[in-house]
């Protein structure tokens, strides 16, 4: 698949931009702060209904404007789909598919798939567990949009359960009998929704492992290959995690029973996929806290590349976006990364300095300057 047309209105720094794109490689070059990342962020938004930089939609709307509109035409196997998203911070966003409004924006997920490499990716290795959970869940949604529903069901259960625990813990501290009649019900729902997410993540990690190891060894000879280990808050030992979803639900239920007293004291849910982590190690040492800067980068890139290979193996190439990543890499890894990605159906590359882009990635060139994008 590839993005054949992109139109933005009041998105970030863009008042209005209209862009024809082609399959193959396109590069976007311009000085700092001119809107390169804004442009590729918008494409990523069409694929995931979220930004890779911010958690809320407010910063996506141009200062002073009320709403932003992103419209993208996606060509896949000769078929064209037009997705239009209206971003209304604080209100419900709206989506259209081929001009017809859809009930929920979620329905347009799956038309465009992207893999985005960004400077922020270093956080996959060095950041909090939340970064790695997000990596896994976004990949799940990209592979099967239904996981967007699984995810939001789980989040809803969690919110309800936390609200109950919070009020119960408030009563507890006032030495009143906490009202826990419904806690078991929420445990059940958390276990069911959590097991669905957990089993999908476990399967995903197993599929990613060989791909990440291979990508890493293609990028660098230093350290590695990375080992991916899913660490569940419900089982200290990874090998204790059953593959079967019903048994995972039982495991979550048991683990919830064990932490009950602590949960009542602290007023939050302490067990479930929202507390899990994906532990990355290089040469038997955790990457976080041990790996060198260069190794951490290679590890993060290897994870993204593994995601790309996985999506590709499902059928068609996702759109590859490389935002400003070459500046972070030495010449050898630049070349190797370029070699790895240049045959994808569509590759969008951004850099502040044209010389940072390896020669392997020559293609259509766009100049980005002061909110305008010009084909050279």
């Amino acid at each position, binding site marked *: 698949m590839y993005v054949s047309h992109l139109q933005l209105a009041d998105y970030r720094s863009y008042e209005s931009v209209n862009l024809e794109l082609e399959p193959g490689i396109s590069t976007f070059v311009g000085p700092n702060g001119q809107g390169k990342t804004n442009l590729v962020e918008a494409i990523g938004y069409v694929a995931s209904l979220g930004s890779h930089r911010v958690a809320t939609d407010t910063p996506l709307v141009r200062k002073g404007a009320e709403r932003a509109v992103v419209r993208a035409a996606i060509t896949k196997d000769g078929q064209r789909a037009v997705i239009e998203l209206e971003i209304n911070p604080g209100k419900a966003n709206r989506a259209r598919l081929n001009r017809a409004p859809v009930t929920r924006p979620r329905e347009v997920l799956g038309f465009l798939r992207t893999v985005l490499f960004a400077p922020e990716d270093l956080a996959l290795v060095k950041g909090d567990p939340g970064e790695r959970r997000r990596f896994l869940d976004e990949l799940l949604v990209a592979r099967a949009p239904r996981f967007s529903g699984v995810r939001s*069901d789980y989040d809803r259960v969690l919110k309800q359960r936390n609200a109950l625990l919070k009020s119960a813990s408030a009563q507890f501290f006032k030495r009143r009998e906490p009202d826990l009649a419904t806690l078991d019900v929420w445990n059940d729902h958390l276990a069911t929704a959590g097991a669905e997410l957990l089993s999908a993540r476990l399967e995903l990690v197993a599929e990613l492992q060989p791909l990440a190891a291979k990508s890493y060894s293609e990028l660098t000879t230093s350290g590695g290959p990375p080992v991916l280990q899913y660490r569940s808050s419900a089982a200290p030992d990874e090998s204790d995690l059953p593959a079967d979803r019903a048994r995972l639900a039982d495991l979550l239920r048991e683990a919830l029973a064990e932490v009950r007293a602590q949960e009542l004291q602290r007023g939050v849910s302490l067990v479930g996929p929202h507390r899990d982590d994906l532990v990355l190690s290089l040469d038997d040492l955790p990457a976080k806290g041990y790996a060198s800067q260069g190794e951490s980068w290679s590890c993060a890139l290897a994870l993204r590349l593994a995601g790309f290979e996985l999506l590709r193996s499902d059928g068609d190439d996702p759109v590859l976006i490389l935002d400003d990543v070459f500046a972070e890499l030495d010449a050898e890894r630049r070349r190797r990364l370029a070699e790895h990605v240049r045959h994808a159906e569509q590759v969008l590359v951004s850099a502040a300095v044209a010389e940072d882009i390896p020669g392997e990635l020559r293609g259509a060139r766009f100049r980005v300057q002061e909110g305008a994008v010009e084909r050279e």
Partner: protein
Amino acid sequence: MYEGAVQNLIDELGRLPGVGPKSAQRLAFHLLAAETADVKRLVNALVEVKERVRFCAICGNVAEESECRICRDARRDAAVICVVEESKDVVAIERTREFRGRYHVLGGAISPIEGVGPDDLRIKELMTRLSDGQVTELILATDPNLEGEATATYLARLVKPMGLKVTRLASGLPVGGDLEYADEVTLGRAFEGRRSLEF
């Protein structure tokens, strides 16, 4: 901000569910421009609904007497009770003409976020109704969203020792939706295909 009475009206309208500040303002100015007789009719309807309408002493449905029309109807099967969240769900199910039993209106669903627990719903009243042994089947027709499901699970567990047949409306209903918005055909078929709840 507008002067006293107008702002007062906007504030009051803005408190209604689904009415934001902009709609409240639009409604207020619509009322200001309307004929006095029309506004009087609206006022009377509001006052009357508060004076005349009560909640059925048995099932909690809206009623004009102490018991609602359905509870007074001797032809309705007293052995089956259908539990719903709101009175409007009774109306929706009645439209399907599939159900000949009686209702129990909870007045909402369990939702800790909104501070609604079992004690805030008409669950004690339901247990009293079930205690005389006349009822043999309980249909849990709470909304097909998380809070509705949680309420159904809670009730199913609660009544389990009574040995009743407990069923839940079959899916086919749009998940995450409100029962009242389901069309007749969908809702009717969901009734046909209701399933047992095992706990």
